[in-house]
């Protein structure tokens, strides 16, 4: 009988008696145990044989002419690690056997005890065992590949603060390789993120034993760039000590956060659409008083017309030669009713204020057009004074309740090459910051309105725009942070920490200018924009 289901056995044995014994014993085994046996006498022969044919199991004698002790095992394992090995050993080799078994040999049988059933059992068993061992190895490799490939940062930390896992994503984010990191102390590993939160999380996790989620935790990546993680901390309950500790799984949410911020920005008001509510307010108020005044003028005209008609009648009777006209009394009555004094006084004012109101509306409309500047990516020479005025008008509702505005704009200012829309954005951001800080002062002191002063002038090859507020000033502690993206000292919903970062990007990177500030606590802050007059300065 010889089918492909037979177990193929390679017997490596130089002693003919021992070889014969094994063959006989195997032949004795009955039942479902069908096999095919190949026999070689030397390790070298075995290696050659295995190059060409595959077997399911190796029966190995430990003392071969060309290999002593575990040499043969090593050689076989090195080249054919997938084949299980069963040792046929002499009794004197017991300590060696123990070591070899630890090194991964599947089983051994004492030559003096060789018995068919036992041998068959050992063979079957070792084949099975090898299979599951391989499966295990496979799955471990797979797990490792998986861990390496997931886009989450995965860091394992042992109970003794030792880094025991550091996946590829972690390498990518922090710019440190696993080989650098494994075995080092986690707390001193030098990565930069919100350690306070992380440590608190770990403490909480170890106390409660349940996973802890940390949201929007900042980190600096290998290049020092700021981003945000959502983190899950899980306790590992390994059976062996080395696998106890914490798993840190970090999901990079910087992009999402950026989107959120843009969304909340969109909700807030940093462009024309977003200023809409304020602009509507600015338009509704003059509309109200213009139409009230028109209503008054209409009423007045009616009254005046009645007076005129009566006068006309009087005139006609007088002209007709009547000296004692009945219309004299009528005139008296009409005049008394007509409220003429009030009208005389108020009509000119009503007209003037109506014109003012209409002007205000048309100014806002013009400023809106100026401000939005759709689709002008390229730099064109623009009138900064006018841009500043338009932006101030469009944003008026944002500052007028807390501040008066003073402008000192150099009328001789030359045109400056500029992306108008972007420049307006900068002015808007600075104005809104000014309004916010003044509001802080006012609400603390219940004081009067503050002041925002905007001035422009030429300084050699530069144009300088200064926006000064009478706000709180910027404390020393945050002075070097205010231009960082996301840095804000304001409550959620009011501040996003984007305003100055955007302004800096626009002025410095897009226009080759500078954006600096002078500040004094309790007095206020002045932001200074400098833009190069020459096109050539612009990068």
């Amino acid at each position, binding site marked *: 009988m010889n089918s492909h289901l037979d177990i193929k056995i390679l017997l490596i044995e130089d002693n003919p008696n021992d070889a014969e014994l094994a063959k006989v014993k195997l032949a004795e085994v009955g039942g479902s145990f069908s096999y095919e046996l190949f026999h070689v006498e030397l390790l070298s022969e075995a290696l050659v044989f295995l190059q060409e044919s595959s077997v399911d199991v190796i029966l190995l004698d430990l003392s071969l002419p060309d290999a002593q002790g575990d040499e043969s095992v090593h050689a076989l394992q090195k080249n054919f690690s997938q084949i299980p090995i069963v040792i046929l050993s002499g009794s004197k080799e017991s300590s060696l056997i123990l070591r070899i078994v630890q090194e991964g040999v599947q089983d051994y049988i004492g030559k003096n005890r060789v018995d068919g059933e036992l041998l068959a059992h050992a063979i079957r068993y070792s084949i099975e065992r090898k299979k599951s061992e391989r499966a295990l190895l496979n799955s471990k490799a797979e797990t490792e590949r998986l861990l390496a490939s997931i886009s989450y940062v995965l860091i394992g930390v042992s109970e003794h603060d030792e880094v025991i896992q550091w996946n590829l994503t972690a390498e990518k984010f922090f710019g440190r390789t696993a080989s650098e990191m494994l075995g080092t102390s986690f707390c001193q590993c030098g990565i930069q993120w919100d350690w306070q939160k992380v440590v608190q999380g770990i403490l909480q996790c170890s106390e409660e034993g349940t996973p802890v989620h940390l949201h929007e935790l900042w980190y600096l990546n290998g290049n020092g760039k700021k981003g945000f993680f959502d983190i899950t901390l899980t306790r590992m309950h390994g059976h062996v000590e080395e696998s106890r500790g914490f798993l840190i799984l970090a999901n990079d949410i910087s992009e999402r956060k950026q989107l959120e911020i843009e969304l909340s920005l969109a909700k807030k008001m940093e462009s024309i659409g977003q200023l809409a*509510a304020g602009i509507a307010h600015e338009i*509704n108020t003059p509309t*109200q*008083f213009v139409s*009230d005044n028109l*209503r*008054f003028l209409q009423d007045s005209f009616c009254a005046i017309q009645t007076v005129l008609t009566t006068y006309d009648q009087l005139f006609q009777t007088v002209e007709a030669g009547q000296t004692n006209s009945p219309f004299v009394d009528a005139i008296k009555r009409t005049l008394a009713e007509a409220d003429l004094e009030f009208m005389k006084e108020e009509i000119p004012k009503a007209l003037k204020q109506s014109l003012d109101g209409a002007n205000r509306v048309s100014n806002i409309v013009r400023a809106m057009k100026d401000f939005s500047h759709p689709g002008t990516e390229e730099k064109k020479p623009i009138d900064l004074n006018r841009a500043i005025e338009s932006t101030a008008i469009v944003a008026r509702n944002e500052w*007028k*309740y807390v501040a008066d505005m003073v402008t000192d704009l150099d009328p001789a200012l030359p045109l400056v090459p500029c992306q108008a829309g972007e420049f307006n954005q900068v002015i808007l951001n600075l104005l809104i910051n000014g309004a916010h800080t003044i509001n802080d002062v006012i609400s603390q002191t219940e004081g009067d309105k503050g002041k925002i002063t905007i001035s422009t002038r030429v300084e050699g090859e530069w144009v300088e725009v200064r926006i000064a507020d009478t706000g709180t000033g910027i404390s020393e502690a945050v002075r070097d942070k205010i231009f960082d993206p996301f840095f804000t000292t304001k409550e959620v919903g009011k501040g996003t920490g984007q305003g100055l970062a955007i302004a800096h990007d626009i002025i410095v990177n897009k226009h080759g200018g500078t954006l600096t500030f002078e500040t004094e606590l309790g007095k206020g802050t002045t932001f200074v924009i400098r833009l190069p007059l020459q096109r050539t300065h612009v990068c």
Partner: protein
Amino acid sequence: MKRRILFVDDEANLLEGLKRMLRPLRHEWEMEFVGNGAAALECLDRSNWDVVVSDVRMPSMNGVELLNKIKNQHPHTVRLLLSGQADTEVIMDAIGPAHQYLSKPCDAELLKTTISRACALGDLLQDEKIKQLVSQIETIPSLPSLYLELEEELQSCDSSLGRAAAIMSKDVGMTAKILKLVNSAFLGIQQTVTDPVQAVRYLGLDTIKTLVLTIKVFQQLDQSGSVGFDMQHFWHHSLSTGEQARKIAKEERAPQPVVEAALAGGLLHDVGMLLLLTYFPQRYQETLKLLANGECSLMEAEQETFGATHAEVGAYLLGLWGIPIPIIEALAFHHCPAKSLVQTLTPLIAVHIANGLIEEKDLQPLEGNSPCLDLAFLIELGLDDRLQNWRELL
């Protein structure tokens, strides 16, 4: 006596415009115009004002803060907001302290009539007899907080039925009551409704809000224990009047807010009776005795014993709470609509007619046998020929 109206706005031009536009009313109204909240409060401290009309956004003290202060310090002054704000957040905040909200630009006629109606409410709030009567009540019932919560939900730009239902469900007893109502074919709903979300969906947030207000107020002032007063009957009368007033408003194709206010006015129109009964039980028993003698109407009997009527007292309470003016009007004048300034089919007219028709049909009218409908007034408004139609709605 001239009405006294105080205008507050930080925009001087706007105040001047108003001053000129309202000049023709100078014989009826005494008007003052001030530029900020502090000045307004000073005026209020110095003398009595019927109505305050305030801007919303102003430096230092905004209009909502101002009206809140006025609500506490001068509860008898009617509070209106006139704002250019498109910002719903502020509008929402304003609901609490303001009796009515107007947006700029506001048409001159609308402004005038709104102020006139506010003055009529002011009369009520300033009425010495009622004030005196109410001042004897130790703690005036407060506006149910659940109602305020629903109101806020309703005003928020992303109001949701689910959230409203959740708010409502906080009060189990009330929710059960509303479900029972809905399932009794109230307001013509045929479906069986088992959960609050469904109830909110079928009725709509406005109606739910009104029901919550009614049920909570009736609970606070429950009179089932008092002798000579049939709380069950009262409850039925209120429900039918509300339902009927709503039907009439609908039938006349009134705008949705009027339909909703007609329901609210109808449900609450007699709430003053509960107030008087709760706080003056003995004196109200005398009133009921006068009524039982059959010589006068309930209104006359109340006038005799209290110097004020349930219509006025109920309207007064809702006025203090800042419930919208059309509803208060409906309460105040539900027996004498001619005294109001109303010319068209407002919630008041709907409630007056509904109450009249229901009393007419009732074998034991709540307020005795004297006729309720003011036919002369209906004829004046040209509505008399619709009566038969409305009867058929019953």
